[in-house]
């Protein structure tokens, strides 16, 4: 029977080449998309999941209520927390503090110097996280205060080997954390799906010695991670630690809770203390897109198979007459769809192999088709599912024929069947239209963000960190930099212009009432900050070298002045953090955060000597290359041969919208594929309709219809279907687009023409697809068709 089924399937494929290829192309494209998205989603879902005790591994999080009553969620906690939890909470098996660092230091052995980013971690670090130690024991490597555990790569770079270096000393240079350490262990590079790509681990004991504040409960800098004992009830534990900080610090606006460590990546966003999604939104979005594209391909199969049912009537009738059960026929038709889906899978795998490099580039991943048991089972499963879905409707439909009727050559197409087929086409185009609108909106929004006037000029500004010799000699350095031909200006500031996590309400001013609760953001800057960025001054002046009292001056933005309700602010004095500051200037509003945030009250203080400052240099347009080369040369001379690593502010800014950018590119491809596969099906359907109506077309032509009349006749049906799709899809896409744009404080308005042009594009594509078939039918000689009678 199997042989018989296979035989008949192959002969069918051979006889109906066009629908066979339409199905093959559609299904293999659909499967290829689904596979790519599966690889991506699977990778996303497995980020940070490799830790052996993943289900017990939690990060302690802190909710803090600010002056406005909003709850902000932080990852940083007091230094003593880890030890206190380990000692006081019986549920805690291990707890460690981890102090991350935002900039690199220099690791040296002899005259070999290498930049690296370190962490200061508690002694049980390797009991909590499953990083693989290739040298050293997990209970011992972090017990000595001056121990350092380094990555295999770092070891190879600095020692050229990983053998026999345990116990060897290294020099570490980084502000007050500099010193001599001995290597106690070497770990393997964390897998690529680890968010924490550790390079260099020092002990938290050492950190505590150098940064005394971390020993207090008031200073929140390290993150705290715990392993909870098996069987711990998470809700109860959360209740238990909720007030833990309040008891220690006696302030009531902090509360603690735990979050599974591996949830950080996908569920990283908190709004007002409540988990509010994160990257998971994109995982869901793309999973849905994959399902939709597969559905579109399945629908092609369903529609073509059922439309061509008249060709199979005889087969069904005869087989039933000789005793085939409905089940046997369903098995045959499902077998047919499964066979073609598995054939498509082979092509899909080739497509995926070809497309993976580009896909990785777009998604920023390192995905590969490594056929392990999991992947094979999933791929076979997805294919089985696709085959069963596409085969189900035809199998039920075809096997349900009444043999007595079909053997007479009659096929009673009921209204419901026609509607089912039309409904499926409408569904395909609805999805395609929604995707096309999304592409429009995402692109417009990204373009809008990129061209939005930020209140400063981000072009041709390069940034780098203050480090090495610059720590002490920044003023000299900046002075010299300004003399380099091609450099227009230079300054420094903190924090980044793309992420500002500062905030204070400890500000008072003349006329402030007790109800006034203004929450200010702030920036620390050096001379020429306003000028280098090209921020527009509204009144007053900026910090000046001519006076020595810049420390007691302050510059506000317009929003801040409005919030405080000050008139003629320049010259007035306010009180900040218990010190008097004189307002010397007001600047027009500029964006010091991403465009997800609106502009908040903000002030700029003169404080160029902080650690970690960002240095910004404005370069003359057209001279970028030469100027950067000169800067590089100068930097190296000034900073002892340290490599000059810089970024363009513009790139930094683009990186803010990295996910959006990726979504934009991907959605463009997927929308293209969706419409292509939909049209492929339509093409097949149109060809078949033209064929089925060939007699009608011939008679109409004989009776005097023009070729154009025939084209219109054939396109009309499909046009109506597409118009119905548009009527459904356009409102739906409006709501989806609006919902997405609501994420942005600054966003485009949804304009009518996005929708009109989507409608036109869709109609044009459909007319082109159907038109090709219609023209062919209209051109045929009517005598040819009528002769068959």
């Amino acid at each position: 029977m199997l042989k018989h089924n296979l035989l008949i399937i192959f002969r069918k494929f051979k006889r109906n080449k066009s629908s066979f290829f339409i199905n093959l192309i559609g299904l293999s494209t659909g499967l290829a998309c689904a596979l790519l998205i599966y690889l991506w989603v699977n990778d996303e879902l497995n980020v940070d999941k490799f830790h052996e005790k993943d289900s017990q591994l939690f990060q302690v999080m802190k909710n803090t209520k600010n002056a406005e009553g909003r709850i902000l969620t932080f990852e940083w906690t007091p230094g003593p927390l880890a030890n206190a939890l380990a000692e006081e909470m019986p549920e805690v098996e291990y707890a460690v503090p981890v102090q991350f660092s935002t900039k690199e230091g220099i690791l040296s052995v002899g005259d070999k110097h290498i930049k690296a980013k370190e962490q200061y971690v508690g002694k049980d670090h390797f009991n909590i996280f499953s990083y693989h130690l290739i040298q050293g024991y997990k209970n011992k490597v972090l017990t000595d205060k001056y121990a350092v555990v380094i990555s295999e790569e770092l070891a190879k770079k600095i020692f050229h080997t990983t053998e026999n270096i345990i116990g060897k000393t290294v020099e570490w240079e980084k502000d007050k954390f500099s010193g001599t350490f001995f290597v106690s262990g070497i770990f393997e590079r964390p897998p690529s799906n680890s968010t924490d790509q550790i390079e260099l681990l020092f002990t938290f004991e050492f950190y505590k010695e150098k940064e005394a504040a971390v020993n207090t409960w008031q200073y929140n800098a390290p993150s705290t991670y715990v392993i909870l004992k098996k069987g711990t009830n998470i809700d109860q534990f959360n209740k238990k630690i909720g007030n833990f900080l309040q008891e220690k610090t006696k302030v009531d606006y902090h509360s603690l809770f735990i979050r599974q460590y591996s949830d950080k990546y996908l569920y990283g966003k908190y709004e007002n203390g409540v988990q509010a999604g994160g990257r998971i939104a994109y995982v869901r979005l793309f999973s849905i897109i994959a399902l939709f594209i597969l559905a579109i391909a399945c629908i092609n199969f369903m529609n073509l198979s059922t439309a061509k049912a008249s060709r199979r009537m005889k087969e069904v009738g005869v087989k039933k007459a000789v005793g085939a059960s409905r089940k046997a026929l369903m098995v045959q038709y499902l077998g047919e769809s499964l066979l073609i889906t598995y054939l498509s899978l082979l092509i899909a795998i080739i497509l995926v192999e070809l497309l993976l490099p580009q896909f990785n580039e777009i998604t920023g991943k390192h995905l590969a088709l490594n056929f392990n048991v999991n992947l094979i089972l999933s791929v076979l499963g997805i294919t089985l599912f696709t085959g069963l879905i596409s085969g189900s409707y035809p199998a039920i439909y075809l096997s349900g024929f009444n043999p007595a009727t079909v053997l007479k050559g009659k096929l009673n197409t009921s209204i419901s069947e026609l509607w089912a087929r039309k409904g499926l086409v409408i569904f395909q185009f609805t999805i395609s239209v929604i995707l096309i609108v999304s592409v429009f909106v995402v692109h417009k929004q990204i373009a809008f963000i990129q061209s939005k006037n930020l209140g400063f000029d981000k072009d041709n500004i390069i940034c780098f960190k203050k480090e090495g010799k610059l720590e002490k000699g920044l003023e000299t350095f900046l002075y010299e930099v300004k003399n380099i031909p091609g450099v227009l200006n230079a300054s420094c500031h903190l924090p980044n212009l793309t992420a500002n996590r500062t905030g204070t309400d400890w500000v008072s001013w003349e006329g402030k009432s007790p109800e006034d609760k203004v929450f200010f953001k702030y920036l620390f800057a050096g001379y020429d900050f306003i000028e280098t960025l090209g921020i527009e001054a509204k009144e007053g002046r900026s910090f000046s070298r001519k006076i020595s009292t810049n420390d007691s001056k302050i510059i506000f933005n317009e929003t801040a002045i409005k919030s405080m309700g000050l008139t003629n602010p320049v010259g007035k004095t306010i009180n900040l953090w218990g010190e008097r500051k004189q307002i010397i200037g007001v600047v027009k509003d500029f964006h010091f955060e991403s465009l997800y945030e609106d502009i908040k009250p903000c002030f700029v203080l003169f404080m160029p000597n902080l650690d970690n400052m960002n240095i910004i240099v404005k370069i003359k347009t057209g001279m970028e290359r030469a100027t950067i080369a000169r800067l590089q040369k100068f930097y190296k001379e000034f900073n002892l041969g340290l490599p000059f690593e810089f970024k363009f502010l513009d790139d930094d800014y683009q990186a803010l919208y990295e996910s959006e950018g990726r979504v934009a590119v991907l959605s463009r491809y997927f929308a293209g594929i969706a419409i292509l596969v939909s049209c492929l099906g339509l093409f097949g359907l149109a060809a078949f309709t033209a064929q089925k109506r060939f007699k009608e077309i011939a008679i109409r032509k004989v009776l005097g219809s023009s070729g154009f009349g025939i084209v219109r006749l054939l396109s009309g049906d499909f046009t109506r279907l597409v118009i119905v799709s548009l009527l459904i899809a356009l409102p739906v896409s409006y709501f989806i687009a609006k919902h997405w744009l609501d994420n942005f404080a600054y966003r485009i308005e949804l304009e009518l023409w996005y929708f009109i042009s989507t409608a036109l594009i869709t109609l044009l594509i459909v007319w082109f697809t159907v038109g090709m078939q219609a023209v062919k039918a209209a051109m045929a000689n009517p005598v040819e068709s009528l002769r068959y009678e």
Partner: protein
Amino acid sequence: MIKTKNLKKIYTTEEVETTALNKVNFEVKEGEFVAIMGPSGCGKSTLLNLLGMLDNPSDGEYYFFDQEVSRFSERQRANLRKENIGFVFQSFNLIDELTVYENIELPLLYQKVSASDRKKRVTEVMEKMQMIPRKKHFPQQLSGGQQQRVAVARALVGNPKLILADEPTGNLDSTHGEEVMELLSKLNENGTTIIMVTHSPAYAEYGNRIVHLFDGHIITENMKGKFHV
């Protein structure tokens, strides 16, 4: 072998209700060769489809080997069909994708006959029908008469007790038509019961009983020369 009581078949569409068969009482004994005649639309094919269990009656009873089958499920009917009945159609109804050999083999596949047995039986039938040289041909490559011979061979291969033939000669010229009739006759002589629908009085004479249908009723039964009313 076959007995119907008040067999009724009504076709309904959204607008009209057509009574194709009305209270048909009909009996066929084993070994008979019955010809059913009547004008177009009188219900001949409907009756044949009901007898062949391709369709269920709207009312009445149908006894097949003393078993009431009119309310059988599709699966039960399929099982009875494949063991007992062979069909021959006017338009041959060979499957285009299958060769002569494979078309004949088809009923055996659904009867779950073993491969070696299938080969034996198909070859036997083909020999009887002198179809061996055509075994690998596809239906499109054969003449009408040849196609109908394949169809008869397919009806025979399962050794059915009953052959239902719906105008088996309708699409054939007289030479080929007679050839098929001779074939059916011979089968009947060897014990196979045959019920055949035909338009042709000449071919109806091959049967040992002629039943005339009109507007869904049996109006006469003619036992070779004798007239019953």
